[in-house]
């Protein structure tokens, strides 16, 4: 197992490298001079020259690239152009809010999605199934930020049950603030995870060993949970991994809707302010989380299904 994890770890290095390269190319070689972006279109030539010198923009590209790689690997993200504080401080402040939102949304999504999916599968083509399929169809179509805006308008603006902006301080207040954003993401997770649980379970229930179990007289709950759900776990865990990533990317828009601090907000604000060090760091952090989640997923698969370790 340790060997397997080690190999996977090595395997993710090229991915990280590619991400760094992409970010570098995207922000430096594509049109748009950061000096002009920061100092404005009418900046004096002297100040532009000083800026370029200060941030090493006059160095040859390969040198800039090496310096960039070194900075990224050592988490030396520099200072924000617009806020003047170290980028790392901004990330340390915002990241916990995003993680908190992702975890709460995933927990609600799993707790709601799997039972609903099983319920729909057991009652295939009956009322619960048709109802759930309609729900998941809407859940697939509705954009996260629209659902968030709807909940915000109904429950915060009109009914006044929840705060409209911010994330609050102290545990109770934070939980109060997180209800609507987390529910927004969780409803979409329930649609996705539930649909996946339903199809995986239905697929397993059609297998021969399930027929055998029924034939030898096993009770229905035992057939469903012991023989069915256990074997549906593998495809389901793949979906859960993907779900973490889609919740993470969904958090970007949701943070904007509910005016919450978070990594997505930080990144989007930086893009509109052309705050290059923050954009760079934000994307690198997001990408690293994606790589880590993918790695964890692979390890979890290997734990669930020992056959994978051998390959």
């Amino acid at each position, binding site marked *: 197992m340790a060997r397997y994890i080690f190999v996977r770890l090595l395997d993710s290095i090229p991915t990280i490298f590619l991400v760094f390269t992409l970010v570098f190319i995207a922000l430096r070689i594509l049109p748009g001079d950061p000096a002009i972006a920061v100092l404005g279109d009418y900046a004096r030539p002297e100040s532009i020259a000083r800026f370029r010198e200060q941030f090493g923009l006059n160095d040859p590209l390969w040198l800039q690239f090496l310096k960039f790689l070194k900075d990224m690997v050592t988490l030396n993200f520099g200072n924000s152009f617009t806020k003047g504080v170290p980028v790392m401080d901004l990330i340390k402040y915002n990241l916990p809010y995003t993680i908190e939102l992702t975890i709460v949304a995933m927990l609600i999504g799993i707790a709601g999605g799997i039972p609903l999916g099983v319920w729909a599968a057991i009652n295939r083509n009956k009322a619960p199934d048709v109802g759930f399929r309609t729900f998941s169809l809407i859940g697939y179509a509705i*954009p996260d930020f629209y659902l968030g805006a709807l909940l915000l308008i109904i429950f915060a603006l009109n009914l006044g049950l929840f705060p409209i902006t911010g994330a609050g301080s102290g545990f109770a207040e934070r939980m109060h603030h997180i209800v609507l954003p987390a529910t927004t993401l969780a409803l979409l997770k329930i649609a996705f995870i539930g649909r996946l649980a339903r199809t995986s379970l239905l697929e397993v229930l059609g297998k021969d060993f399930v027929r055998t179990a029924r034939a030898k007289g096993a009770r229905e709950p035992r057939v469903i949970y012991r023989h069915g759900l256990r074997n549906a776990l593998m495809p389901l865990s793949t979906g859960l991994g993907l779900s973490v990533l889609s919740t993470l990317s969904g958090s970007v*828009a949701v943070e904007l809707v509910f005016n919450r601090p978070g990594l997505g907000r930080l990144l989007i604000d930086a893009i509109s302010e052309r705050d290059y060090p923050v954009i760079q760091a934000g994307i690198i952090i997001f990408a690293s989380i994606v790589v880590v989640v993918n790695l964890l997923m692979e390890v979890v698969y290997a734990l669930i299904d020992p056959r994978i370790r051998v390959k």
Partner: protein
Amino acid sequence: MSAVDQVRVPQEPKFAGTIVKSVFFTPAGAIAVTVILLFAVIAIFAPWIAPHDPRAQSFLSVNAQPSSTYWLGTDQFGRDVLSRLIYGSRNSLIIGFLSPVFAALIGGTLGVLAGYFGGIIDRVVTRIIDMLMAFPELLLAILIAAALGGGFWNVVIVLTVAFTPGFARVARATTLSVKEEPYVEAAIAAGVRTPMIIVRHIVPNISAPIVVLLTLWTASAIRLEATLSFLGIGTQPPAASWGNIIREGLSNMFATSWPILTAGLAITIVVMAISIIGDTMRDALDPEIN
């Protein structure tokens, strides 16, 4: 009659009929197609249908509630919400349809070449696909949008890049399996030249899954365009798109919520209709799933 004439030529499957039948002759599919056609008509004839100029500001009627003049009210600049929705359908739908088509062409070509020729091309393409596929489309889109900025063609580029790896992966996988089919082996044995085999035998037979994917991802592209515009890195005001109508509406929600409610409803209905068409096609081609 010579012996050669009697050899049974391996038959290629026919997909087109199955797809058309499934979409037009199931109730859900027919309703979804009607909805899409309706929205297409609205987008195409926007200048004739829209009651007002979508960019005309009227400071005398800011944040008006729905009335006989402004059916869905006005926004914080006094612009007619209905007209902005109608014009917004143009940006949302055209970008949503164009980008997956471009992505299918580029990704499909890469995938077919990688799958058919194998070797070093295949290894490079697969590696890049795997890396890009590890990222959620939105994050990939944000990265490119951060560098390019917003605007119509930039959004098209962003979405095309975001969807290309997926098409490449599916095209490669189906090419690999089609390559082993008897009719392709027969063509190779008969000495048909490689470009001809690819165009006449591979492409038509991988087109069914690609078309299904194209449909499903048109829905994703419309949603992604809306998300980017909502985040402020997609379609830029004063041009209207359903996403940026919601963005502007959110900052004005204390005064009126009509822009948010209606624009979001439009996105949801269109995305749902396209997903239904895609699902129906997929079920028809692959009856085992579901």
